[in-house]
């Protein structure tokens, strides 16, 4: 250890080098490593595929997954929760929600409040699924659902109206068991 007089003995680490490649020993090692590799791949074969066959099998989503929006009704009275306050439209960063409010007429009430949303449209081709509308809503009238299959052939079909948002989704996305 006298080669490094400026270093303390415990600071000098001797590098452990592997055996030199090549030669008969190298060939023997390569053969052994090949067998080890073959064992590794065979173990993968026995484990079986991990692929999820997407259109038939779907990946479960977490409970807080932000998918397509849903509008809600009161379960007891059947009245819409939305009162047409446009707070969601104000909160929306991509400006994709359009609300036109109208006064409730006694006798044929649509919502529980004074006013209701006569027009409620979400342009899903602009939506970034940030969930700010859900946070802004004072009545929990709009929430993010679990639907994520929204591809379509026409941009006009991606503008969802109030009726479409109020309706139950045709097919529910599977939910992860544990979640949070």
């Amino acid at each position, binding site marked *: 250890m006298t080669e490094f007089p400026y270093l303390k003995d415990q600071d000098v680490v001797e590098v452990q080098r592997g055996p030199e490649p090549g030669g*008969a020993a190298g*060939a023997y090692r390569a053969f052994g490593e*090949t067998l080890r590799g073959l064992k*590794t791949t*065979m173990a*993968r074969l026995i484990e*079986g595929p991990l692929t999820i066959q997407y259109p038939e099998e779907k990946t479960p989503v977490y409970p807080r997954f932000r998918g397509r929006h849903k509008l809600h009704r009161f379960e007891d009275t059947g009245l819409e929760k939305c009162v047409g306050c446009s707070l969601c439209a104000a909160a929306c960063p991509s400006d994709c929600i359009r609300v036109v409010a109208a006064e409730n007429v006694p006798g044929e009430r649509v919502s529980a409040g004074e006013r209701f949303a006569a027009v409620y449209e979400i342009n899903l081709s602009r939506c970034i699924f940030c969930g700010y509308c859900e946070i802004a809503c004072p009545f929990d009238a709009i929430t993010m659902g679990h639907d994520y299959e929204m591809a379509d052939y026409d941009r006009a079909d991606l503008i969802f109206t109030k009726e479409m948002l109020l309706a139950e989704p045709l097919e529910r996305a599977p939910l992860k068991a544990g979640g949070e």
Partner: protein
Amino acid sequence: MIPLADTSFVEATWVMIVKSLVIFGVVFAILPLMTVLERKLIGRFQHRYGPNRVGPFGILQPLADVGKLLGKEAFRPANALPTLFVLGPLLPVLSGVLALAIIPWGDVQHGVGLYGIDVPIGILYFFAVGSIAFYGVLLGGWASGSKYSLLGAMRGAAQLISYEVSMGLALLGAIIMGGSLSLVDIVHAQGAVWFVVPQLVGFLIFMLAGFAETNRTPFDMPEADAELVQGFMTEYGGMRFGSFLLVEYMEIIVVCGIAAAVFLGGWMGPGPSFLDPIWMLAKMLGLVLLFIWVRATLPRLRYDQLMSLGWKILLPLATLNVLVTAVLVVVT
């Protein structure tokens, strides 16, 4: 004197024609199944399913592939050499079909030998015909007029000289023990014990050289899709590319057939004699699975690594194997 041009068994012409048609038909029915088997197995080796959409279990995938290839334009680059460019994919097909003739599927039954032809120079014929396949690589690479193709072809040439000698020497041990070059005689000589036991070294060397002969991983340097964009096949498209692919699988069948006949006792197996071709096929399939398994496992060797493997390890080992076998055969 050794009767080189003799065939030890003469049959009627129509029998020969029927036999060749049957062998051709059976092998060409197996080839597409092999491609789908390989893709499915490679998938399983990688935690995937592989093709499973076309037909039940994806079994019609090759049909879809061939349909696609047939629909493609037979394009030729402007600076390619026309005749050689077309000849490139044709020669290997010829060589593969010719080599199929000597694979023994069974013994003589009811006056019909269950093989294309039993030439007394069997293994020499295999080497002679098998080397023609290499002209496909070289001509294809040269005539394409592309630097990647040429590089692939050059690598193929360098690869050929480094494995071909060891391949021949690996078989020589079994030839000495069998006392004949004819594959049928060699299979007959394995009645007591398959040659894979006394000739284990020869078998391993032959399989290693077989990987190189068929341009398969870990010796797929002429193709080298990662660095040479398919090497000598770069400029080919449509069914010309398809025939290169077809040849690769045909060569696997031929190499596995030779290995099964020389080292694994050919058609020998329990059961009545009409099961012989099934046994042969089963042994070949086992070796094909080994090919696929190795492909799923090993990375491509570097150019110089193959050279040093071929010249420094395989060749001395094969020579030693031959010497020891020869001495033992003479002594006992």
